[in-house]
């Protein structure tokens, strides 16, 4: 029975690379408007990675105008995610970066991690 469940689950979205908490990413999502399709970008920091195979997801946080924080969660296997570009890795010591929610301006910066 478990095999049947696996058989209908979505395949891995190959356009999403390995992500790490703290990564600065640019997520391109396909948006349908009527019969037209366009790409929307969402740039921010990965503050959470949720594992779990078929239901795995990641949350990206960005600070929009007027210092209002916006978080968006994407499913890792969603066919709507066109691609994810990792712009830089950052040095973080936690798996969940919820502390970023209370920070603005200078204190909301993360140090870049060089390989």
């Amino acid at each position: 029975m478990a095999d049947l469940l696996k058989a209908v689950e979505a395949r891995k979205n190959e356009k999403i690379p390995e992500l790490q908490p703290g990564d600065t990413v640019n997520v391109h999502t396909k948006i349908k408007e009527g019969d037209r399709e366009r790409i929307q970008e969402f740039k921010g920091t990965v503050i959470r990675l949720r594992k779990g195979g078929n239901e795995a997801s990641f949350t990206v946080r960005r600070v929009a105008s007027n210092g209002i924080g916006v978080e968006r969660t994407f499913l890792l296997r969603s066919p709507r995610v066109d691609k994810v570009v990792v712009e830089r890795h950052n040095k973080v010591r936690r798996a969940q970066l919820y502390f970023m929610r209370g920070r603005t301006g200078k204190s909301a910066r993360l140090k870049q991690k060089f390989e």
Partner: protein
Amino acid sequence: MLKGLIGKKIGMTQIFDDQGVAYPVTLIEAGPCYVTQIRKPEKEGYSAVQLGFGEVHPKRLSNGELGHLNANKIPPMRFLREFRIKTPELNIGDKVTVDVFAVGERVDVLGVSKGKGFAGVVKRHHFHGMNATHGTSDRNRAPGSNSSGTTPGRVYRGSRRAGHMGMDRVTSQNLKVVMVDAERNLIALHGAVPGGKGSLVVLKETRKQ
């Protein structure tokens, strides 16, 4: 055309439709079912179709059950269920598969809910229970008082108490068909379906239209 099937609940998962929308779905291995009997108003007093599901070793069935199926050269079937239908355009021995349902249609699902055993009033009837603190001792999930005093001097009939919960015949109505896989005899329905994994479910055309 008969819109009904017998199946086995596989479990829940999440799938995407062609728009990329994620749906929480229950997967059901439905059919293939065989028409084992046509019930006619002239003989039985009503019209219906009897379907069989789940091939088994002949030893698993009684001679009566075997004879009923053998008479029409149908393989031994574990489960037989009736579906009321006015004009059955089917013959005995016909195969019914998941093809009868199409993506986007709505179905009702009958099943037997998970048994909870002897359950208290908090679980069974959603009573609120009592305070955790403020001097409450050993009464956190108690039902409270039963009735007034001398009048009426008895407990009203049908008042909600602790007792056996679950193992009831439950119908989930108006579930949307998200996916049909004729090759694997699978059907995916939006939302939850009564019963545990591996339990028998009956799919019907929905009454809510």
